[in-house]
């Protein structure tokens, strides 16, 4: 019995993550059809989800942006592979992307805001495609089912041992509980291993592509810093990156950054970042992405993010977004800072009506009478603005 339990526990928990080499790209067979009852069922379920998701209000139907991201996908994983993917861009401020087992890919606008350049976006898209290519959804489903069975039968065995009683009953129940814990833990460990495999395969795509592989670890560094900034702003303890929790479904960002950096250095492959193309494609969406991010009520995280996007040089739209962020929080010192940001914007672009609006409102909220003048300028520039009547009332 004890041996059987030990074997079961070892099978379920699996070996600890080892530093694995980057795999060779698996052969790709083109239009793949689901095999077996489990996979067919899973695909059918996701086909149904996709059908309703396609017409959802949260999906952005911008043909040119969609085409661009599809192109990035093709540059990353190759034309044959990328053609199987249906892409959905979703208005969601969190950094995320996901892939259904049937080839439905979801990209959040929060990822587009944080990716900064094409290579980083490509790395994440490659990671998601790797889940698809390695059929991770199916394997996870099967693993969870097996682990669920083991946990249930261990429960029955434990209850039986307790009912029978006798000297060994206590130890048998404890053993059954250990098996249950191992079974439950193994489903999360398995998911974390899948994430590691997807990271590795994404590195394999990066190696075969024109992109710089160093882009991938950078993403996780910045995400950790942003999460730290958010936690600090909310006076919370920051996430620990040196260990994974029992229920974690991803490895820690630190582990991913460290592993991927090691692989990128070992690969020693130069590449492009495609920043110019990325900025051009996202130009029409930046203002919307900033506005959505500011409404998350995460001052420090957003300020960090804007600073990272700006780098050494604050562009006009980033300065304006920063002004809006500070004015929204609205502490007296924030309002003073916001006035400074808006002034910088109008100094660079005297036709920026919205900056005059922000400037005027920030000044009015600070009891600075000069705000009325800025708001009058706004109304002169945009007499038909949606809030023209409201602004007129404020300056009366």
């Amino acid at each position: 019995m004890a041996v059987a339990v030990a074997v079961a526990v070892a099978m379920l928990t699996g070996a600890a993550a080892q530093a694995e080499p980057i795999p060779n790209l698996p052969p790709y067979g083109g239009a793949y059809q689901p095999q077996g009852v489990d996979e067919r069922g899973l695909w059918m379920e996701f086909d149904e989800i996709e059908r309703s998701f396609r017409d959802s209000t949260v999906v952005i139907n911008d043909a040119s942006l969609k085409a661009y991201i599809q192109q990035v996908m093709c540059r990353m994983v190759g034309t044959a592979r990328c053609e199987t993917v249906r892409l959905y861009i979703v208005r969601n401020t969190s950094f995320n992307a996901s892939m259904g087992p049937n080839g439905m890919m979801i990209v959040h606008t929060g990822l587009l805001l944080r990716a900064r350049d094409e290579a980083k976006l490509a790395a994440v898209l490659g990671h998601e495609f790797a889940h698809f290519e390695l059929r991770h959804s199916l394997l996870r489903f099967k693993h969870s089912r097996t682990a669920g069975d083991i946990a249930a039968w261990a429960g029955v065995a434990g209850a039986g041992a307790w009912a029978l009683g006798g000297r060994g009953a206590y130890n048998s129940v404890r053993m059954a509980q250990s098996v249950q814990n191992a079974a439950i833990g193994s489903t999360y460990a398995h998911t974390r291993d899948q994430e590691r495999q997807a990271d590795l395969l994404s590195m394999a795509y990066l190696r075969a592509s024109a992109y710089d592989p160093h882009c991938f670890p950078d993403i996780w560094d910045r995400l950790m810093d942003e999460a730290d900034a958010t936690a600090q702003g909310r006076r919370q303890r920051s996430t620990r990156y040196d260990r994974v929790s029992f229920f974690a479904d991803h490895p820690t960002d630190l582990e991913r950054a460290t592993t991927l950096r090691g692989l990128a250095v070992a690969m020693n492959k130069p590449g492009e970042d495609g920043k110019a193309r990325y900025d051009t494609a996202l130009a029409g969406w930046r203002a919307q992405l900033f506005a959505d991010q500011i409404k998350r009520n995460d001052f420090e995280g957003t300020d960090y993010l804007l600073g990272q996007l700006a780098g050494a040089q604050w562009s006009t739209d980033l300065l304006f977004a920063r002004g809006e962020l500070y004015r929204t929080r609205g502490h007296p010192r924030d309002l003073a800072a916001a006035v400074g940001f808006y002034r910088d914007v109008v100094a660079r672009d005297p036709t920026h009506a919205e900056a005059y609006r922000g400037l005027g409102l920030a000044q009015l909220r600070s009891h600075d009478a000069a705000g009325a003048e800025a708001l009058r300028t706004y109304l002169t520039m945009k007499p038909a603005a949606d809030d023209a009547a409201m602004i007129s009332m404020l300056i009366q």
Partner: protein
Amino acid sequence: MKRTLWLGAILLTTAQPALASNTLIVAQAPVAVAKSPMTVTPDREWNKMGARPGRNSESWTIDGDGLNEVTFYGGIEADRTLFREVSKRTMPLPRFSATMLLTDIPALFEASYRIALNTPVMKIDTVAPTTFLGHKAVQFAFTYSRVDEEVRRRGDAVAAIIGGKLFMITFDAPDIFYYQRDVAAYRAIVATAAIAR
């Protein structure tokens, strides 16, 4: 006998929440709302929901809170959220500040809805000046959809800052049918809103 007593006690304890839940608001009678000095006189019957969205607020509905809902915010104090936090640790709601301008109220409302409902599909459509409770006020219209639900919802709101506290009445309903049918009843409530001096 003992069993009857026990049964009675159980019935009493289970009946309490039911009693405390929805109450009928009769038409044409002034009623104080949201534990505040604000009173309104509805032109039709409403149901007051037992569950309050937050400390200084209450909700009325005709057919159910997802179908037509009027919410009264009766004096939200500085550094308070509009309604109860949904997830204070991961998604804290923005807080009202007494120094806010009237134009900041629609933005506060939008951010609160976006975070509480976890939806990016929320938009303030129009903002206009008005008078509410005898003070300068802002009225605004908004549209939104909840996550995993394709119903387009539409709403109106009117808000004033009086003595550093936020007084607001909002209405929201599905755009199809309910909004058009019930918005007049909401406007009748707003038109009769008064505040005790």
